[in-house]
């Protein structure tokens, strides 16, 4: 059980004026980043990380969390007004948000999405508070065998869930990411693998430039190659949601909050799937199924609650297992390490105050997001009027400088370009990016755990299959792969 005094201490620290100021600007920046099609949460976090180098760790983490929370929410603005999700996590929001906007209820939809996001974040935070200590305690029993399966299962399940139409492509993307992670010096003999005598490759591929490429440049190329300009709805209707609508949807918010958090918890799955799963559950349990896809407030709230709840959900494995629950949380994990924080099973013993600080920062970011979302929606929407031909080159300059700023070496800019172009080609062929990035993050853990495990068992694979947690993870991984062998069904149209 989390101690109330420790939670209050976390809030007391987060309410210090300097941190409060950081929360406000980073959340607002996040909302703008989330709103702009072509800018993703992952890219925003990857670009902000080098700018936090000169900050102390508390300020840096507050800024990154504010941006994360704000950006996931910000995507809903564009989804509702333009029918174009600002971030992939808001794709489900557009299904009912845009029809509501076309019915001259845009402001109401924006406000309902805000309320859903706020409650989703709160549900996720409560679950984070209660599950993080339990998971960290449980993970203290994990050894190399369990971490090997956790890394492998993470890539497989991420590949499966982010490419529901064709999980094989998700797995290939994951294996590709794991293979890229093999580049550079390994830890047993310090042998430099696949570096071909190139000095810069001996240190391996830096995660943040790769992510800026895979999520930033890919979005720029996709955005600029499209010839279709989005049609903007009128921002009209009530500014505040009806209390009755909020009360009537309390059950939907609670369910979606839990579903979103659970989806966030699963390695590499994250906010997008959190929104879709919450939407699907809400539709299945709704008395007005026919309204889904035609302007259902219930569907809108479910999607927004789900993606926002996935944010704290994705942070749970980051803190307790050092395994990211989503692509943006992979950047957060890298940033924590850069700032000298070592997440993992020891977190509640070594730095429990960090967990409570994270909880407080997320809650304050959610509060800022709610106030800003309700009060500043109209001025913030003005940013959507900037033509992409003028916005995207500026974004690319930030991508380039952001990649360079990590270690001040041009090689990282080339990495960003290579991952961007490769990612663009793969995305055009329907390969998802999230498993590729998760593979890049988890490759080192997979390699280290496999070889350490084999050293401990003197070459026997038996403990990988017989230790209880390993056996469960192995079975889940095999089951996930075997499911592919079932006859494929077409993905149902969510509007149907």
């Amino acid at each position: 059980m989390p101690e109330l005094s420790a939670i209050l201490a976390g809030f007391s620290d987060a309410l210090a004026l300097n941190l409060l100021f950081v929360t406000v600007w980073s959340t607002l920046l996040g909302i703008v980043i989330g709103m702009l099609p072509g800018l993703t949460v992952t890219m925003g976090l990857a670009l902000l990380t080098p700018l936090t180098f000169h900050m102390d760790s508390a300020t840096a983490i507050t800024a990154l969390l504010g941006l994360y929370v704000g950006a996931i929410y910000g995507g809903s603005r564009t989804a509702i007004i333009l029918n174009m999700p600002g971030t992939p996590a808001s794709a489900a929001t557009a299904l009912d948000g845009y029809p509501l906007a076309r019915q001259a209820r845009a402001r109401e939809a924006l406000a309902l999405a805000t309320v859903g996001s706020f409650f989703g974040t709160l549900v996720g935070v409560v679950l984070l508070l209660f599950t993080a200590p339990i998971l960290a305690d449980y993970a203290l029993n994990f050894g190399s065998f369990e971490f090997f399966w956790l890394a492998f299962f993470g890539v497989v399940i991420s590949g499966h869930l982010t490419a529901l139409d064709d999980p094989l492509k998700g797995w290939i993307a994951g294996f590709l990411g794991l293979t890229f992670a093999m580049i550079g010096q390994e830890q047993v003999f310090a042998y430099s693998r696949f570096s071909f005598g190139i000095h810069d490759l001996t240190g391996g591929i830096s995660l943040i430039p790769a992510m800026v490429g895979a999520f930033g440049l890919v979005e720029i190329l996709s955005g600029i190659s499209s010839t279709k300009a989005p049609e903007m709805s009128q921002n009209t209707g009530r500014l505040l949601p009806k209390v009755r609508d909020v009360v009537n949807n309390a059950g939907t918010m609670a369910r979606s909050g839990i579903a979103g958090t659970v989806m966030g918890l699963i390695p590499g799955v994250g906010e997008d799937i959190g929104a879709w799963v919450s939407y699907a559950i809400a539709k299945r349990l709704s008395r007005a199924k026919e309204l889904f896809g035609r302007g259902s407030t219930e569907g809108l709230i479910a999607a927004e609650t789900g993606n926002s709840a996935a944010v704290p959900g994705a942070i749970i494995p980051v803190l307790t297992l050092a395994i990211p629950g989503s692509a943006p949380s992979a950047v957060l994990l890298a940033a924590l390490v850069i700032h000298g924080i070592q997440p993992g099973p020891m977190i509640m013993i070594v730095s429990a105050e960090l967990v409570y600080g994270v909880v407080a920062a997320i809650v304050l970011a959610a509060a800022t997001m709610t106030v800003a979302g309700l009060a500043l929606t109209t001025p913030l929407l003005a940013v959507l009027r900037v033509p992409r031909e003028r916005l995207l080159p500026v974004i690319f300059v930030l991508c380039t400088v952001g990649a360079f700023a990590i270690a001040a070496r041009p090689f990282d800019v080339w990495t960003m370009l290579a991952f961007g172009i490769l990612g663009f080609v793969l995305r055009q062929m329907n390969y998802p990016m999230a498993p590729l990035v998760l593979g890049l993050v988890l490759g080192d853990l997979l390699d280290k755990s496999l070889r350490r495990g084999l050293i401990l068992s003197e070459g026997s694979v038996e403990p990988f299959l017989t230790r209880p947690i390993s056996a469960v993870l192995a079975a889940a991984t095999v089951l996930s792969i075997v499911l592919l062998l079932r006859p494929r069904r077409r993905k149902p149209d969510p509007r149907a």
Partner: protein
Amino acid sequence: MTNGALDRISGLVFVGLGCLVVWGSWLMPRFEDQGAPVYQAPGLTPGLLGVALAVSGAILALRRGRDGAQTTTFWQNVFGAPQSRRRAGAAVVLTVIYGAVLFGNTPYLVATFLFVTAFVLVFEIGLNSQNRTKGVVRSVIVAIVLGVVTSLGTRFLFETLFLIQLS
């Protein structure tokens, strides 16, 4: 070319890549002379991943086609209509010239000004789908102003506020 054919091509590429990874892993030293058993070899994990990549690629390449007779070219399938292709191609060329050639080799302000200005001009005038005759001068002015503001603004942000040396 159908999507199934495109999957076959990408599947074969992954088979090839997987085989190369296995081959590269096999050639890595095993440190047996230092008494290391085979399961400590640096090539173990990449070798297994190479196998996984090759097998997945083979399944993708060999599975049955999933769609009907859709006859489009490879490039159309991957990059869409000719207009989209041109735009994507131009963006790749511009970003590579800036990131790999200009950035770090020419002063930051000059490189960034050239990139931003060229980008706006190419996409607002050169590759605009609507045949614009009006507003060209406006686009040129916007491109130049944006180039100046972006280069000065980002240099101020990174060098002055965040102490990151750019040039």
